[in-house]
């Protein structure tokens, strides 16, 4: 129930639930147009207009008809519950709502809610005192702010209204008004929960402005009392600025705000905090400002300002970038110089090594000759023949035992030519005739057919006796070397079998790789065929795509076939055939299969192949096997390779008269004691190793008249190198 007497003498009253009435001159008039909800207050404006505040909005009354006031400014405060109204001395009308305060001045509304610093709480006590402070309160407490603050806000001079809060006064909402009164002595009266709160007009107002201060600046936790001189380099620094404001009467109610020019776009209300923290400030000049208002809204006379500089870090400066570029250029030049010098040095070392090796080889040959001479003296058949007709004129008695023919038969015409094995005949006869004509002493090996039809291997050494510059007689020795020869043949067979076994074993290692290798073209073939089918089903097939797809099917089919062909050739049991080879191509063919397996193990196989390598004579499959074996060995040694050492290097080089191939790994390396024994058969350090791999490698390389050896790699691991002589035709 609310009552109000306007200046014209009308009595306004409400009786709950939206019903309001006016009594004038003894007549009752109902006010229509109010919606449901309690009427909280009536108010007469200067103009005589009557406003009604209800739970559901703010209304103006014209001819006893209430119309809702819909102003865009009112929409910003959400609540339509108008709880209190008060007319200030300046003619402003103050309205209390559930979510803030509204000021109506000079015909326009201005709403103050939480964004403007006014508590978003139920405000149903509202009064302006004689010193122009607005007091407003409700369930959460009583607040006070100078009206000048609201003026400043309206002129955009402050973002928030500074209120002083008295939380100890809390008022239970009540539907009956009015609940505040401005007394004639200037004091104000506010209805409280039990009794009345009186605030006298001579209430002390603190007119001493607070003095904002910057007390300390901490950089990464280190204190810097001299705040006038702060500078530091950018980066991960934490700058903590401590500030405050001196005000003695009510320090708790001082309101401090700060702003970092160049960083904050607006003033920040420090609330209870007295420090501001900044991290990762960009290089530049900054100004930190602090200002404050005291409990009665009196603002500080001046802001406290501190300037500081954030310097660019050394690497952010221009000169640093310049120096970096210059030093990179300098360094690369220097390293090129150092690298070429070390290459020269390595070349000299290699040269020396080659000379040493040659000397050793010569020594070996002469000792071998002495040894052979000795052997011949014990088992040899002496003979003499006519240099022109090749007819024997004399043979030792051992000849009968050896071949089963009587001595007389040896001495018949063309005996030698007729009894040389048919397969060897052409070469042997031609060789002997040639050497005889040139007058050279010589030795060679060939087969003869014995009386029992068996083939006998003979080592034939002879001396040409010259008379008057013409070859007259031949004198020599025949040695039976059949046992040695057949042992050699067996060894060769054995070697081939072993090689095949070894290749088949390597094949196991490569099974995944081969499957992958074949699978790729197959996938592409199937896919392209499906695409072609799909395209051809369309009404207007894109024939260009179809043709391309078919073309790729052909290409990939051939690719798959050649892969399979290559694999089969590795396992084929075939005789040693030699041909002119490019070792680079042999190496590339060999590693093609093992490459995916190497990658799967997280290793990187790098090749450094010398361009235009001279050709060598050899068997491609056997050499591929050696290379494959060396690469697999390297990869196995690097099973536990450290990061950064995952490179396996395959190199080819040409060295006067030789071609060399090196495989370098960064694996576990070879113990010094083992270096000499590595190539012995059955010598192995691997639990599953047969110890045959390197032995077979050596046999193969030596069969190619080459050599193979191992050394330590730098900084870790091992290197295996073999060398093969360049093919004759190129050499001469």
């Amino acid at each position: 129930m609310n009552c109000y007497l306007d200046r014209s003498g009308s009595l306004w009253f409400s009786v709950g639930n939206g019903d309001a009435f006016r009594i004038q001159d003894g007549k009752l008039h109902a006010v229509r147009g109010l919606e449901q909800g309690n009427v909280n207050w009536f108010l007469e404006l200067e103009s005589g207009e009557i406003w009604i505040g209800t739970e559901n909005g703010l209304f103006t009354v014209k001819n006893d008809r209430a119309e809702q006031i819909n102003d865009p400014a009112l929409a910003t405060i959400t609540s339509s519950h108008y709880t209190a109204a008060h007319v200030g001395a300046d003619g402003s009308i103050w309205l209390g709502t559930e979510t803030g305060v509204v000021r109506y001045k000079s015909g326009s509304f201005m709403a103050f809610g939480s964004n403007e610093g006014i508590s978003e709480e139920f405000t149903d006590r509202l009064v302006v005192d004689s010193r122009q402070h607005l007091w407003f309160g409700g369930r959460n407490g009583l607040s006070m702010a100078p009206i000048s603050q609201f003026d400043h806000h309206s002129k955009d001079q402050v973002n928030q209204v500074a209120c002083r809060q008295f939380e100890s006064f809390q008022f239970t909402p009540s539907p009956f008004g009015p609940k505040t009164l401005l007394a004639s002595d200037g004091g104000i009266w506010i209805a409280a929960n039990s009794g009345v709160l009186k605030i006298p007009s001579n209430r002390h107002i603190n007119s001493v402005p607070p003095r904002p201060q910057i007390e300390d600046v901490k950089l990464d936790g280190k204190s810097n009392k001299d705040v006038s001189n702060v500078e530091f380099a950018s980066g991960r620094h934490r700058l903590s600025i401590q500030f405050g404001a001196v005000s003695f009467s009510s320090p708790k109610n001082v309101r401090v705000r700060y702003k970092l020019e160049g960083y904050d776009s607006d003033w920040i209300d420090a609330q209870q905090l007295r420090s501001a923290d900044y991290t990762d400030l960009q290089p530049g000049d900054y100004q930190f400002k602090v200002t404050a208002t005291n409990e009665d809204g009196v603002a500080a006379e001046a802001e406290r300002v501190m300037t500081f500089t954030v310097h660019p870090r050394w690497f952010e400066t221009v000169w640093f970038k310049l120096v970096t570029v210059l030093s990179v250029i300098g360094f690369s030049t220097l390293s090129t110089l150092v690298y070429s010098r070390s290459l020269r040095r390595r070349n000299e070392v290699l040269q020396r090594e080659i000379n040493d090796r040659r000397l050793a080889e010569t020594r070996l040959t002469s000792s071998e000759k002495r040894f052979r001479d000795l052997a011949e003296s014990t088992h040899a058949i002496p003979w003499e023949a006519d240099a022109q007709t090749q007819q024997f004129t004399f043979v030792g008695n051992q000849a009968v035992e050896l071949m089963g023919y009587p001595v007389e038969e040896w001495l018949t015409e063309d005996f030698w030519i007729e009894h040389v094995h048919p397969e060897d005949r052409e070469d042997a006869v031609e060789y002997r005739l040639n050497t005889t004509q040139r007058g050279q002493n010589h030795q060679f090996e060939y087969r003869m057919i014995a009386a029992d039809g068996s083939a006998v291997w003979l080592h034939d050494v002879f001396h040409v006796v010259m008379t008057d510059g013409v070859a007259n007689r031949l004198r020599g020795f025949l040695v039976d070397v059949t046992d040695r020869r057949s042992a050699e043949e067996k060894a060769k067979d054995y070697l081939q079998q072993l090689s095949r076994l070894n290749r088949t074993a390597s094949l196991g290692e490569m099974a995944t790789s081969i499957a992958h290798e074949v699978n790729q073209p197959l996938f592409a073939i199937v896919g392209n065929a499906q695409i072609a089918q799909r395209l051809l089903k369309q009404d207007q097939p894109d024939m260009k795509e179809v043709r391309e797809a078919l073309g790729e099917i052909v290409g990939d089919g051939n690719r798959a076939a050649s892969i399979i062909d290559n694999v089969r050739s590795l396992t084929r049991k075939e005789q040693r055939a030699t041909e002119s080879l490019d070792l680079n191509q042999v190496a590339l063919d060999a590693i093609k299969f093992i490459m995916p397996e190497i990658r799967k193990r997280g290793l990187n196989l790098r090749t450094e192949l010398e361009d235009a390598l001279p050709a060598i004579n050899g068997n491609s499959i056997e050499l591929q096997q050696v290379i494959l074996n060396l690469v697999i060995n390297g990869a196995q040694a690097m099973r536990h390779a450290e990061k950064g050492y995952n490179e396996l290097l395959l190199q080819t080089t040409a060295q006067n008269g030789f071609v060399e191939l090196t495989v370098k790994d960064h694996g576990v390396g070879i113990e010094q004691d083992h270096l000499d024994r590595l190539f012995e058969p059955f010598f192995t350090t691997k639990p599953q190793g047969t110890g045959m791999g390197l032995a077979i490698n050596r046999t193969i390389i030596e069969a190619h008249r080459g050599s193979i050896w191992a050394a330590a790699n730098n900084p870790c691991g091992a290197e295996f190198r073999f060398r093969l002589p360049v093919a004759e035709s190129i050499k001469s």
Partner: protein
Amino acid sequence: MTSNGIVYIVDDDASVRSMVTRLFRTSGWQVESFASAAEFLDFRRPNAPGCLLLDVEMPGLNGMELQQRLSERHAELPIIFMTGHGDIPMSVQAIKAGAVDFLPKPVSDQLLLEKVELAIQTHAKQERESNEVKLFRERCEMLSNREREVMDLVITGMLNKQIASRLGITQATVKAHRGKVMNKLGITAVADLVRLCERAKL
């Protein structure tokens, strides 16, 4: 048929790359193919839904490593692995790391097309939804404290009356707050509000 999405292919085998590119090109997709993981990482991907067809065995970075790099970059591109000889542990690892599928080569073209289309659709949907949630979060920032309080109670299923009594305000104000919440968030139905709050984990 022209589809809005990009198929990325990373495979070191030129034949496979060419075939897969043709398959998707002739099916109306935009295709970008790369011979190595490094090439793909260097590529500036346009902001469009897509799907990555990735070979496992490659020199340099392999497929699994590329997947890890992408996840470190928070690139939420769906990945379908293709491999010539994948084993179960490998596929488990890939799927656990977020791969959409792990297909053995050779893959039927029909299956590949279906898988990729599904992955791209899913990706596009995810992108749309994550944009929606992002927008919703931004809008929530605009709510005042009181509005936020009201929203938090609304999504628990409380009636206006209950909210009013909980916050000590009238029903009319609750209604007004609610209206402003819905307005600011650009939502008309409470069901949407509940769904989005759930999704945005608010």
